[in-house]
């Protein structure tokens, strides 16, 4: 459903700060895939997401989503079919507006001059209650009052309110405390399963990279160095991933942000 063909992106080209973020990158994602993406800092994981979302134009190559060439489609138009969550829980919602107003924008139906109807509010309330955080009783409060975990859960709800074709999770639980992180991850799993979403998830937690989803991709220097699914993946342990990295990259995966357990 998503296909990246020979995609390249270099930052600060032809200067001493030149950084090849994606180098002749190829990836084919199948419908219903849940792929965890791992790799050291600077491997090009977030650049990959930015390229898919259209934050910038790639230098070369093609990006195809559901048979449509989206290589040159503007970011806000791609957002109709691609949902994205960032590591920073503050990034996905407007703090000065109420939960209800944030959801109204995310729901996005009706004309420009339409207002939130009673029926809409009922739906919002129902969806919020699924988060199990009591947010359904705080719909008129500004989002700025919520905790990081609550905001990330709300963002998750907002970006999947109209189920996107593709959901991109960029370390979306990394900034949360362990128990909240667990909870948001559970919610993510549930929402992805319920809506049968195709999903890419960047994570630094090697264990959850193997636990979640059906496929794991390891990136290094803007390329995929290891791509595993099915039976082979089932028997895999974190130590195997580290071995794989050493084989392919020629060095140890030493990274203080990487969680090896």
């Amino acid at each position, binding site marked *: 459903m998503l296909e990246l063909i020979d995609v390249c992106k270099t930052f600060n080209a032809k200067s001493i700060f030149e950084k090849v973020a994606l180098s002749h990158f190829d990836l084919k994602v199948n419908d219903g895939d849940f792929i965890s993406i791992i790799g050291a800092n600077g491997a090009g994981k977030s650049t990959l997401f930015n390229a898919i979302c259209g934050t910038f134009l790639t230098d070369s190559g093609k990006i195809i989503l559901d048979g449509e060439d989206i290589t040159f489609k503007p970011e806000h138009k791609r957002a109709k079919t691609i949902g994205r969550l960032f590591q920073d829980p503050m990034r*996905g919602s407007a*703090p*000065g*507006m109420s939960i209800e*107003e944030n959801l109204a*924008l995310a729901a996005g139906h*009706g004309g420009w001059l339409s207002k939130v109807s009673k029926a809409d509010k009922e739906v919002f309330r129902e969806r919020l209650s699924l988060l199990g955080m009591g947010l359904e009783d705080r719909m008129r409060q500004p989002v700025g009052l919520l905790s990081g975990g609550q905001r990330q859960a709300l963002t998750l709800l*907002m970006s999947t309110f109209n189920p996107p074709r593709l959901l991109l999770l960029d370390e979306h639980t990394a900034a949360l405390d362990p128990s909240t992180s667990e909870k948001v991850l559970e919610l993510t799993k549930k929402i992805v399963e319920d809506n049968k979403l195709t999903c890419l998830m960047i994570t630094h937690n090697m264990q959850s990279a193997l636990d979640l989803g059906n496929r794991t991709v390891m990136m290094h220097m803007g390329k995929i160095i290891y791509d595993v699914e099915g039976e082979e993946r089932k028997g895999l342990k974190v130590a195997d991933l580290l071995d794989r990295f050493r084989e392919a990259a020629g060095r140890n995966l030493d990274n203080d942000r990487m969680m090896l357990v």
Partner: protein
Amino acid sequence: MLTTILGLGATALELGLISSLTVLALFLSYSMLNVCDLSTDGCFTLGAAVGAVVAISGHPYLSILAAMGVGMVSGCITALLQTKMGIDSLLSGIIVNTGLYSVNIAIMGGASLLNMNRTETVFTRAKTLLEGTFLGPQYRLVVVVLFVAAALVLLTWFLKTRLGLAIRATGNNPDMVRSSSINPAFTTIVGLCLSNSLTALSGCLLAQSQKSVNVTIGSGMVTIALASLLIGRAFMGKGSIGKRAVGAVLGAFVFRLVYTIALRFNLPAYMLKLVSSVIVIIAIAGPYFKKRFPEFRRIRQASKGDGNA
């Protein structure tokens, strides 16, 4: 004595309400869209000049629409500069403001002053219309109240629609707007078009009310409106959108009232702009110092004591 006070109140009310339209414009651009629109001064004069020229040519009602129309164009240019041409939002306001100075004089036919003493305006029309009714003596106030009420109702309604929400979110978190499949450039353009049409309307009404346009009629307007906006915020706090919009209008009135009273105490008229500057400084710096106060106190105690207080 009483009549003097009432008279003062009425003048402050009229002038305050006229400038409250500019305050509402800034409420939209500054408070909602988070853009400090420095083309406000020029746009105010633009509305006044176009309104005057059209009224002088014999179309008092059309003058209102014409002023709002050119205001929209001016806002659209400011918005295009910052969303499509990579010019910083403050800078694009300043650039448009500078350009408008020439445009305004050109519109006024090369003169820096236009007189409307015998011109039919919306005010003279209202005077004839209300002659003999109980509203007759207050015809000027009636006109202004009608415009402000309409602007207030429409703006409050608009900010609750989907487009209005998108404009508010643009000032709050443009990333989130984009991920809601809305182009923040579009919402910025719409927002600035609307806010500048209000600014131009405000200028048009002031010119017609005082029966003349000077090319400097709008100078300092952005600071005056900002001062009023911040006064309004102090009164109304952070309530609902409707409440905050009413606060903006109230702020404009209070600002004028204080100023009118100050004039009574022989404060020269040219002090208006200094007063507005000081109010803006206090209104913005006040909360900042209040927030930092515990830190200052700790630093002072530390320097007095053993450095570990």
